[in-house]
């Protein structure tokens, strides 16, 4: 019987040493030996910041219907009801071919502009086993200016109606609340406003969002446009607003000095200056649909 007692004793000591650590701690310690890669999600609430693109893509078989309105400038006075009498609209539709590739089309009232684009998510920010500090998305757009020529007597070819936009969107979600993005881009116009304008116009966008509640965040964007490339004075677009998310919708309400809802109008055609008080109210309603079959 001595041996039995001794074995119990040994077991007792062994158990005590094991119990000093809880089983859950032990499990967590075990799991942390092989960490998973955690991909950062929801850097921004939507595929748009305000006027410009965000780093986000839709995900496979996701579809967005985007209805955007820009009212006139607030300083246009009481006879224009402080800008609310005027409105400019863009209707857009975008679709996720894969989790990393989006395609989209849209049509704006300004210039009767038809735009089409493709977005490729090249890198995803991640932590854990695989660390990637930023997300990276390539954005390319081709636009068609459909409005009648201002001087119909002059000879223009159909190709003059096209412009091309390329952007590399670099974004980082610093924490659950703060996300920032940097957007070097350029726009090439086949036909410029005057002969002295350059066809290629480079720009750099800065954007950020700060989440104030789970479903509400503040956002702002500023595009620095390389000066001196156009004869007419153009101003850098700056916009700020609020994003409200309700399940399938994102409502974006904002103030902006730009009435362009595509880079083609926003960058080379922005004649509004914040300093002169040329800014107006606008909103985007982004309705998400899901075409995945359950």
């Amino acid at each position: 019987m001595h041996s039995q007692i001794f074995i119990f004793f040994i077991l007792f000591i062994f158990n005590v040493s094991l119990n000093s650590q809880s089983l859950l701690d032990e499990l967590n310690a075990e799991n942390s030996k092989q960490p998973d890669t955690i991909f950062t999600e929801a850097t921004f609430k939507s595929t748009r910041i305000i006027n410009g693109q965000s780093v986000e893509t839709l995900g496979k078989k996701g579809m967005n219907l985007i209805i955007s309105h820009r009212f006139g400038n607030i300083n246009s006075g009481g006879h224009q009801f402080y800008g609310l009498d005027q409105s400019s609209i863009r209707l857009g539709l975008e679709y996720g071919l894969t989790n990393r590739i989006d395609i989209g089309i849209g049509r704006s009232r300004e210039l009767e502009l038809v735009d089409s684009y493709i977005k490729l998510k090249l890198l995803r920010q991640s932590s854990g086993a695989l660390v990637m500090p930023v997300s990276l998305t390539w954005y390319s757009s081709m636009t068609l200016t459909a409005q009648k020529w201002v001087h119909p007597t002059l000879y223009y070819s159909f190709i003059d109606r096209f412009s091309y936009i390329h952007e590399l969107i670099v974004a980082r979600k610093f924490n659950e609340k703060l996300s920032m993005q940097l957007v070097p881009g350029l726009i090439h116009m086949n036909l410029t406003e005057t002969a002295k304008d350059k066809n290629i116009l480079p720009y750099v966008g800065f954007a950020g969002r700060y989440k104030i509640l789970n479903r509400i965040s503040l956002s702002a964007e500023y595009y620095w446009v390389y000066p001196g490339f156009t004869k007419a004075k153009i101003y850098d677009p700056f916009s700020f607003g609020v994003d409200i998310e309700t399940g399938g919708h994102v409502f974006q309400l904002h103030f902006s000095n730009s009435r362009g809802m595509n880079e083609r109008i926003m960058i080379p055609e922005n004649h509004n200056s914040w300093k002169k008080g040329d800014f107006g109210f606008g909103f985007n309603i982004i309705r998400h649909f899901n075409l995945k079959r359950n």
Partner: protein
Amino acid sequence: MVLDLILSGISTLKGISCLYKNMIFMKYKLLLGFLFVPFIGSAQIFKTTQGSAKFVSDAPLELIQAQSLKLSGLLKISDKSFAFTVPMRSFEGFNSELQRTHFNENYVESAKYPDATFEGKIIEDIDFSVPGTYDIRGKGKFIVHGVEQVRIIKCRLIIQNDKISLTSKFSVMLADHNIKIPSVVSKKITEEIVVEINTTLIPKK
């Protein structure tokens, strides 16, 4: 004689209860105790790393399902204690990518509360050395969304020679875990989420 010794050694490896039952073992000297006790100690923990955890929200307007294959857990035979954990971000499925994002961002807040865990002890006395099917109850701390609930959860264990299969189906009330549903989507998400667990535990080396 030598064969007896080896046999008894093997049987002790299978579980601590063998130790007490196996009277042949008792004939041998203290030395044997020294030799085998550490082995018994390490073999009496079972583990799983790729278990399945599924949940279903069957609301009037929408059916939402998701599954994780990253359920991990430990089960200690000696004191019937267990711990299970599943990373919330590992759930896949849903009806869209956006829905998965919203699940992590707005509902379970995965960045703040990355895991759901259940840690406790088995209420029933069962003999893990005897193969068979056992319906048992686990009692312990169930944590989702950082909110701890003391729960008794029914499980079925199927004990085989070198593995234990575990299945369980239980429900989780969102209100118990402070997960709020906005009234706009109240017909798309149920208050009561049905969870199904399915995994196989093997001896931990």
